[in-house]
């Protein structure tokens, strides 16, 4: 339990809750392959408290959300939130690979709530419909492997009047996710496969600033970089050549070949993308 106890009741009027959607930092890149959408959506934002949020549920903090779309399948990879309640208690909320994994209370250290969470690397698999490769259609497994480490620091800044109390802090997730596509089959004299080298996201981006319970608008900035959707999806079909007694390539279509998009974030804003990522 933090040094801030429930006796230290700092309630915020519902009417003063801030809607900070205008400050949302969502970075999305989508590409189409085989008629289906592939891509990533990565969101680094202040916690939003909708206008109808009960006073007891008002929070100030930051969220990170990562969702992957692979061949039209939309999956939540990460939902992470670090916040301070209006009772001045630290809270975290982690969903990883679609599962709730933690409800760890942040440590209160030197006047700040801190969390350093390493999430175990996860694999999310989903079968997709047949992919045409030359003359045959393959059943294919696709999915996402992802790793994440999240650093959170939130420092409550008490103020009078009480609704002007705010929280200064930062949320710095290091997130990487790669897509995989696996399909292979052999039907006596023909074999075919589909594979991918797909880097969906590589991000070392941080959101930081000062967010309040309602008395003042958030002041936020970003730092770091986000690299989105690079790689290729390929396929092959071979037939068995009895004359040379080995498989011979019949088709080798490159389904897609994407260059990555890098977004370089600097403190104070989001500059145009297109620069080289580290």
């Amino acid at each position, binding site marked *: 339990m933090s040094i801030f106890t429930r006796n230290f009741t700092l309630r915020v009027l519902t009417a003063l809750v801030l809607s900070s959607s205008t400050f949302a930092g969502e970075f999305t890149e989508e590409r189409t392959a085989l008629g289906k959408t592939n891509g990533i959506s990565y969101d680094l934002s202040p916690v939003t408290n909708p206008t109808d949020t009960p006073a007891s549920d008002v929070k100030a903090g930051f969220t990170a959300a990562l969702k992957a779309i692979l061949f039209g399948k939309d999956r*939540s990879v990460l939902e992470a939130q670090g916040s301070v309640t209006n009772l001045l208690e630290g809270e975290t909320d982690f969903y990883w690979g679609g*599962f709730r*994994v933690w409800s760890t209370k942040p440590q209160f250290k030197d006047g700040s709530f801190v969390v350093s969470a390493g999430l175990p690397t996860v694999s999310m698999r989903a079968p997709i419909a047949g992919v045409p490769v030359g003359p045959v259609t393959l059943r294919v497994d696709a999915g996402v492997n992802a790793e994440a480490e999240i650093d959170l620091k939130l420092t409550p800044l008490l103020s009078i009047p009480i609704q002007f109390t705010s929280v200064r802090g930062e949320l710095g997730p290091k997130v990487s996710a790669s897509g*995989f596509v696996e399909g292979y089959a052999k*039907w006596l004299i023909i074999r075919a496969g589909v594979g991918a080298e797909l880097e969906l996201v590589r991000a070392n981006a941080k959101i930081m600033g000062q967010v309040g319970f309602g008395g003042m608008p958030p002041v936020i900035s970003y730092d770091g970089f986000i690299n989105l959707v690079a790689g290729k999806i390929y396929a092959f079909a071979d037939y068995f050549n009895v004359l040379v007694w080995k498989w011979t390539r019949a088709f080798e279509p490159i389904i897609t070949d994407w260059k990555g998009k890098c977004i370089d974030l600097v403190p104070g804003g989001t500059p145009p993308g297109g620069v080289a990522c580290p």
Partner: protein
Amino acid sequence: MSIAPALKASIILSFIAALWIIPELGRSSFMEMDGSYRSPASVGPQKEVPKLENEAHATVSPLWPVKGERWIFRFERKVSAEFQGKSWLKLTLGGRASLEPTGEFADHRFFLIALELDRLQMVNEGVSTEKNEKRSFPFVRFDIDASGKLREMRWVSLTGEVKAPSEEDSDFVKDLVSQFLFFENRSRLGTAKSTLKVLAKTETNETLHKTVLKYENHPEFSNLESEHEWVSDTHRIQRIEGTENYSLAGATGSFDQKTSYRWVFNSSEKTESVVTDLNLGTVLKLEEDISSGKRDSERMAKRFDLKSFPTQWSALAALAPHDRLRLFGEVKNALDGGQSELVSVIVKSLDGNTSTSLEWRTGVGVLGASSNPVSAEALLNLYKNTNVEDAKLSILAAVTSGEGTPAPDWKRTLEAEVANEAGAIHDASLFALGSAIRKENDSERKKDLQTLLWSEVRNSNSDSSQLAALDAIGNSGSAEFYTYVKERFSSSNPSIRARAVSAVRFLASDLAQPIIDTARADPAVIVRKAAEWSKRFQEPATQ
């Protein structure tokens, strides 16, 4: 030696040779003059034999060749493929096969088959090529058990040299093996549903007819025609032939594959003990049971060299994220494919690393992601052997989010943890319990886990404990708790309603959709957002 097993073995082995058709012995009854294919004889008296697998068939056929005797067969195999109704590829192989015993040891009986091709024809997209040169293959040795079943198969080179087969050689052998299994419901294409009929039977001759109705692991097959015929006299198998045609429907047209084979007895020879005492070595052991139904992609899983793997794995933190995730995926697939030896290397690599280190996160993650039971057991032991809370939380997160089924003994461990007072470990154990329910395949164990979660759910009186219980239920994806979730969805607290709608995300849509639809019109934004999030998981498994 009883006659039935030996007969069965003889039948089976004969069927191998029936891969091939000998044109010199007359036109195959499977092929018309125009080269089209038709089924083997389907006339004459038919007597249904009710069951195929593992059934001893009283036949008139004799034993395998006895010591000092070699049977010679001619064979031919034809394969053709059409795409969009046009010829794409035609293959014809023909040659000789010889079969002889090579000795016995305990209940092992060894037979050697030698294959020599002398006819090769290929027509690829209109271009015809023919090679009639002789091409020999290494001997194939069969180890037949006392019941006449194939125990294993090995290869040895013509010079007696031991060597590993290439992939295509291995495929070729597997193709042979599939023909081996006339009386079993499996072939190189997988487990089959078949029927067997006795077409004719006298004191001296017997004709059996087998029809494969369906390959269970090939739902993509359409228009399957798979007919096989076996003819024997009192001396040996005289002829085995068959056709197997099927189509693969594609977006741009149908790919139709037609195959036939025929093996006809030619002659027998007396032999000196030419190969009887040949040291056959351990050339090739079948890598997996072809009836196992494993996906081809699993068969393709990379296997790691155990000598270099520790170095490779210990350097993972230095890799670029994408390369590390690729290594993670390859190791997961190798573990799933049975390379359990990697587990000890991975566990050892965790020593001295904190739960936030890349080594720990990747190592614990891959143990939790794999379906390998050795991995699952290692993860549990890791948990039991640490007192560091962060490490415990990380392991619980791997159990929760990983694709692998947790080790059975996790139930006892989680039970002990959730019995402790509320806290991070309690909640994380509850979430892991929910996830374990979702992944458990054993119905009894699943029921035990559900009972444990129920006891926690019933004890959830505070808002915070109900939120944790709903999260665990959400992780479970179990309809067992649906009534409770529905009840909580009517709570006046929007946080509870939001968590309840999140908890239906893995449920079948007929259960989940009404709650999601209602939640989308909820006055509270957090409930509406939870509905959108839950809906994301409701997409069909395949498109």
